[in-house]
């Protein structure tokens, strides 16, 4: 009887032979807490009666949602966080380096086969390097900080095979959006998504990250990609045999197998106000827009900025449109400055902001109002996410977003 990737990861962690449906206690390899929730984690941790962290090295604290502060009381979160760091001897803290999910893999906190929890639903992102990572609340985080363990139900797996070559104007964002549309917003609830096929193998780790990031939008507990040479290079490691064998076995049992041909994908949008309301860009073409946002832990990476720059080079953003570009991390920001991407974007008329969550969580940097439309590369178009509840948010790839910025209308990207 073969195993799925998630069964293999959990089996190795618990030294058992884990099967979907079983409830097991895992040893946690790393945790991530971000600024919004640190006050609550700290409070629960002490309320629970813990006096020390199970392993200070394994805890990462990242300030990203509230950096720089946009409301008067935001800095309280930093003060509480700093006091917690000091009191319990934490070392891994990032105060202005970028978005948590970008930093966790970029700064080397997550490796293939690890089990990682974070106080954020998009913690599924680290599946891009073959880790089991999932979001939890602050009470569970507090209990992990004290014990180093957490219970999980071994999830069933949906396997997604994608074979062939993608059309030039399609990115991994279009794939994951289409998949969420096909599954529905709850189609993968409690389940793992396992990606395979030569299209996926050909993708950069950054593109895989976009897909793992959005797995939660179909309700998934985690998303998994088999670690390969690209993963090794990205993580700056040499893959062990154990890591290489994180493949879904032939005889593994899947609740569902979905097969796609890469050639069949087209640029798509998630239309207001559900992430599974997917339409081809061609169906909405011509709709006028007010703003474009390129950024977030979904699509604020260097390759995304390169895609946008390729489209915007020598062109101008439509006069009535604001194009806001937010790199996902300081490293990406610096790289995009060094290779000239930032000047291309700036010359085209983009407003470039500091790395962080920024507009994605609707707190700062381009909030919209009733009746306005935004095309955005982040992961949620829920009511009120980027301003008032009467803002229409269309989620798209960086290519589509850049094309829309030039025309001021929903536009099919050409590359």
């Amino acid at each position, binding site marked *: 009887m073969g195993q799925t990737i998630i069964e293999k990861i959990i089996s190795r962690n618990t030294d058992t032979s884990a099967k979907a449906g079983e409830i097991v206690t895992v040893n946690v390899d790393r945790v991530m807490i971000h600024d919004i929730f640190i006050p609550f984690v700290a409070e629960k941790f002490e309320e629970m009666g813990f006096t020390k962290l199970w392993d200070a090295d394994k805890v990462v604290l990242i300030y990203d949602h509230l950096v720089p502060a946009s409301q008067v009381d935001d800095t*309280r979160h930093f003060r509480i966080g700093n006091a917690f760091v000091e009191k319990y001897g934490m070392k891994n803290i990032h105060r202005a380096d970028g978005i948590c999910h970008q930093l966790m893999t970029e700064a080397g906190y997550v490796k293939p086969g690890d089990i990682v929890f974070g106080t954020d639903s998009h913690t599924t992102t680290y599946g891009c390097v073959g880790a089991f990572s999932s979001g939890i609340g602050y*009470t569970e985080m507090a209990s992990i900080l004290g014990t180093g363990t957490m219970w999980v139900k071994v999830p069933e797996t949906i396997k997604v095979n994608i074979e062939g070559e993608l059309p030039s104007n399609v990115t991994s964002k279009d794939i994951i959006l289409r998949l969420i549309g096909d599954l529905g917003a709850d189609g993968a609830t409690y389940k793992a998504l396992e990606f395979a096929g030569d299209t996926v193998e050909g993708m950069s780790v950054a593109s895989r990250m976009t897909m793992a990031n959005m797995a939660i939008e179909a*309700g998934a*507990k985690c998303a998994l990609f088999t670690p390969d040479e690209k993963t090794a290079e990205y993580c700056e490691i040499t893959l062990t045999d154990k890591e290489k064998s994180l493949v879904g076995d032939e005889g593994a049992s899947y609740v569902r197998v979905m097969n796609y041909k890469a050639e069949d994908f087209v640029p798509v949008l998630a239309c207001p106000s559900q992430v599974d309301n997917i339409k081809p860009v061609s169906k909405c073409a011509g709709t006028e827009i007010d703003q474009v946002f390129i950024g977030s832990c979904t699509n604020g990476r260097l390759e995304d900025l390169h895609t946008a720059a390729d489209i915007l080079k020598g062109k101008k953003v439509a006069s009535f449109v604001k194009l806001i570009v937010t790199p996902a991390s300081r490293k990406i920001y610096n790289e995009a400055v060094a290779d000239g991407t930032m000047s291309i974007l700036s010359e085209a008329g983009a407003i470039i902001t500091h790395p962080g969550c920024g507009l994605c969580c*609707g707190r700062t940097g381009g909030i919209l109002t009733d009746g306005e439309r935004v095309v955005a590369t982040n992961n949620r178009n*829920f009511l009120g996410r980027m301003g008032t509840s009467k803002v229409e948010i269309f989620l798209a790839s960086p290519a589509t977003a850049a094309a829309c910025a030039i025309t001021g209308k929903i536009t099919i990207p050409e590359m």
Partner: protein
Amino acid sequence: MDKFTGRVWVLGDDIDTDIIIPTEYLALKTVQDMTPYAFSPLRPELAGQIQEGDIIVAGKNFGCGSSREQAPEIIKELGIRCVIAKSFARIFFRNSINNGLLLVENGELHDNVAEGDTIEVNINESITHNGTSYKITSLPDNLVEILGAGGLVKAMRKRNGLD
């Protein structure tokens, strides 16, 4: 204690945590401060109307979206006795158990109930509405343990020899 009746508020499918509590209010100091804004993007008046002991009946995927644990805390703070939905999003489900908020998964009630109706809930057994009874499936043992301890904080305090 194991049996109670309550007035019903009916909500639709995919009630996400940004609806339950929008991000702009998440950095308010306490859950009590956030409570008036519960459900505001969808029904701004709802938080003011809910009374102690009321029940929410929703469609599928209740609590989808972000991991914000304030979502179940606020629902509890509003006085909601339990949430009955066709299905729950995973993180919300865990957060609710950890905070001692009772959730019941039921596929049929939502299609037959109207806002303002009264229903009776018999924990781990059944829901009764207009003379029709719906079966409730029971939770796994480890969750019953956490709920039984009064939530995860209390369970951990016990482990650490505090209570």
